[in-house]
């Protein structure tokens, strides 16, 4: 992608972030998500429970992680802030890393209405072909353990 900005979020705040690795010279941004920090998102709060804010210790921990990464810091509505950042840098698209939190996928969908979004994969812990049986850990681990240790064998 030509002239993108990079979106970092709370699942990829390290040097292995594939967007930072792929585009080391492009501006990157992290947005402190106001709704999430207020406990209004299922990432931090029970959808049927009372809304309670996230503690300062969690915010401080994130902040210290972010100071060691080349990212601009904002707070507010994530999609709005990312798009404003993209405009400020004349970006033609957004690159981010793949993650688990459904909130991030929803934000990317909103962003895609304005700019193309490229999602880069993070190196997995274990690669499993086809769908995994997640009914209980033991069923998953029967398959995964063999694959994980196979990579130790290769190195050793």
């Amino acid at each position: 992608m030509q002239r993108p900005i990079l979106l970092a979020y709370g699942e990829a705040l390290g040097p292995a972030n594939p967007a930072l690795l792929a585009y080391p010279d492009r501006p990157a941004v992290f947005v402190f998500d106001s709704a999430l920090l207020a406990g209004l998102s299922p990432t931090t709060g029970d959808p049927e429970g009372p809304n309670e804010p996230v503690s300062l210790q969690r915010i401080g921990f994130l902040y210290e992680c972010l100071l060691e990464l080349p990212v601009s810091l904002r707070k507010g509505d994530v999609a709005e802030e990312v798009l404003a950042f993209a405009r400020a840098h004349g970006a033609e698209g957004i690159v981010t890393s793949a993650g688990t939190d459904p909130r991030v996928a929803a934000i990317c969908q909103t962003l895609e209405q304005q700019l193309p979004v490229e999602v880069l994969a993070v190196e997995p812990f274990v690669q499993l072909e086809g769908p995994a049986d997640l009914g209980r850990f033991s069923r998953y681990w029967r398959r995964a353990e063999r694959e994980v240790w196979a990579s130790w064998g290769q190195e050793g």
Partner: protein
Amino acid sequence: MASDSLAGVPLAWPEQPGELPRRFDSRQALEAELQQLFPEAPGALSPIRGGRRQAETLLNRLQPERYAKGRNFLDGPVTRLSPYIRHGVLTLAEVRDAVFARTRSRQGSEKLINELGWRDYWQRLWQQLGDGIWRDQEELKTGHSAAAYASTLPADIDEGRTGLACMDGFIAELHTSGWLHNHARMWLAAYLVHWRRIRWQAGAQWFLRHLLDGDPASNNLSWQWVASSFSHKPYFFNRGNLERYSNGSFCRSCALREQGCPFDASYEQLEAELFAPLPAIRAVDQRNREGGRDRNSTRQGAPSAALSRPARRR
């Protein structure tokens, strides 16, 4: 901490008006700034520092074999990597490779790799369940209906004044450091759900607000495991178990050490007290006893502080 200044790595692009600061004279200055920026957020900075440098320091201390032997003890050699893994400061693949680099025999590292597997498993389930991770995955096996559980956290728990030295100690640590050993998480969760009969969701949300490693995957599914909506029986403990793995440190100073400790009973007594009769539980329990496993024993797949997952019996 004399040279305590916190300067962010330099940016190769101009900052925009309204962006948040990246340079502080001290950690106290960072804390003051964050209190201004996020006035609703309770508490203060954790003594646990964020960032890759601290994560690498911990990674370099990994001792897979010692971990396997001592992880169940509150003062045992657990990794404390969970906040860094949760936020991708370290990827699970990086931690896996660091364990491999310290592996002389596969057997010595199997436990730690297994615990990383738990993290991967919970993440895969979150992907599958989405926000449904807040709903009971299965019916409770406690003999009580879902309606029997309170939906909010009582004040004495939120304020850490239950009168139980262990629980109040765990709550204080949760609120000040944002990190608890996995065994402490299990005991606290079991106390809330089974002794106080509070919905697991209220406890899970409380943990997510405070835990540096909190995410709905490991956290909620572990609460469900304790509650029995994601396991074949509820998790509970007794005083002997807590006293052993905390080296008696709480019981010694507890006002209830001689009389009135709600955990001071046999597993049979506690089971009768906490749960309504449910044929299925007793049938499973009977099978486990016949298999020679005891609730007092160190459990298979026992807890990892790194991954906020309770010990399991499989």
